[in-house]
């Protein structure tokens, strides 16, 4: 059974903390994505990566960075968490002709 696994389902962090969200896929997919989901706004792309050590900005990269040191792992980093980054974060992976496979999501609350 193919899987995308996110390290946490729920996370509570304080303003100003550095936050790491980890995502691992076991399908040998070249593409990996980070989205955030907010009510009424749908899914917005933060960053994506189409190869190891490669990254591209999505629609809302401000306040975020990413790391992809290995093909199976794509990390999202909030350098200094703020309350407006409270959201649901979704990781996904895909290959060229496949659909996107999603993790279970991480609900992050910044207080």
């Amino acid at each position: 059974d193919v899987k995308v696994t996110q390290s946490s389902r729920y996370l509570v962090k304080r303003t100003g903390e550095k936050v790491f969200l980890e995502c691992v896929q076991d399908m040998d997919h070249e593409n990996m994505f980070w989205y955030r989901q907010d009510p009424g706004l749908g899914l917005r792309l933060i960053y994506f990566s189409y190869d190891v050590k490669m990254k591209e900005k999505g629609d809302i990269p401000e306040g975020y960075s990413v790391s992809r040191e290995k093909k199976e792992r794509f990390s999202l980093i909030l350098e200094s968490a703020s309350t407006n980054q409270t959201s649901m974060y979704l990781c996904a992976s895909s290959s060229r002709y496949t659909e996107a496979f999603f993790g279970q999501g991480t609900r992050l609350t910044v207080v």
Partner: protein
Amino acid sequence: AQSVAQPEDQVNVAEGNPLTVKCTYSVSGNPYLFWYVQYPNRGLQFLLKYITGDNLVKGSYGFEAEFNKSQTSFHLKKPSALVSDSALYFCAVRDDNYGQNFVFGPGTRLSALP
């Protein structure tokens, strides 16, 4: 640029009746089209996709969708709704002219009532 519209925020349907969730898209090249479903506090689950071939695509849980190139639409349908179909539905498109990204619509909340 690629974009997806889901014109209805909310769709209500009685259990046992047919359901339709609408999706229209805009791409410059050939579209790859997808439908996903999301239950509360969960990730997105894949339902079906159109890449090429037959315009009528059948997917999971009895859902199907019809690709209409002239109307740039990809509406999701099911002949008989179940209460358990109540969820948030997302349409997505990928345009190979713009690489490997997926663009998602805003989502449509389906309520199937007993």
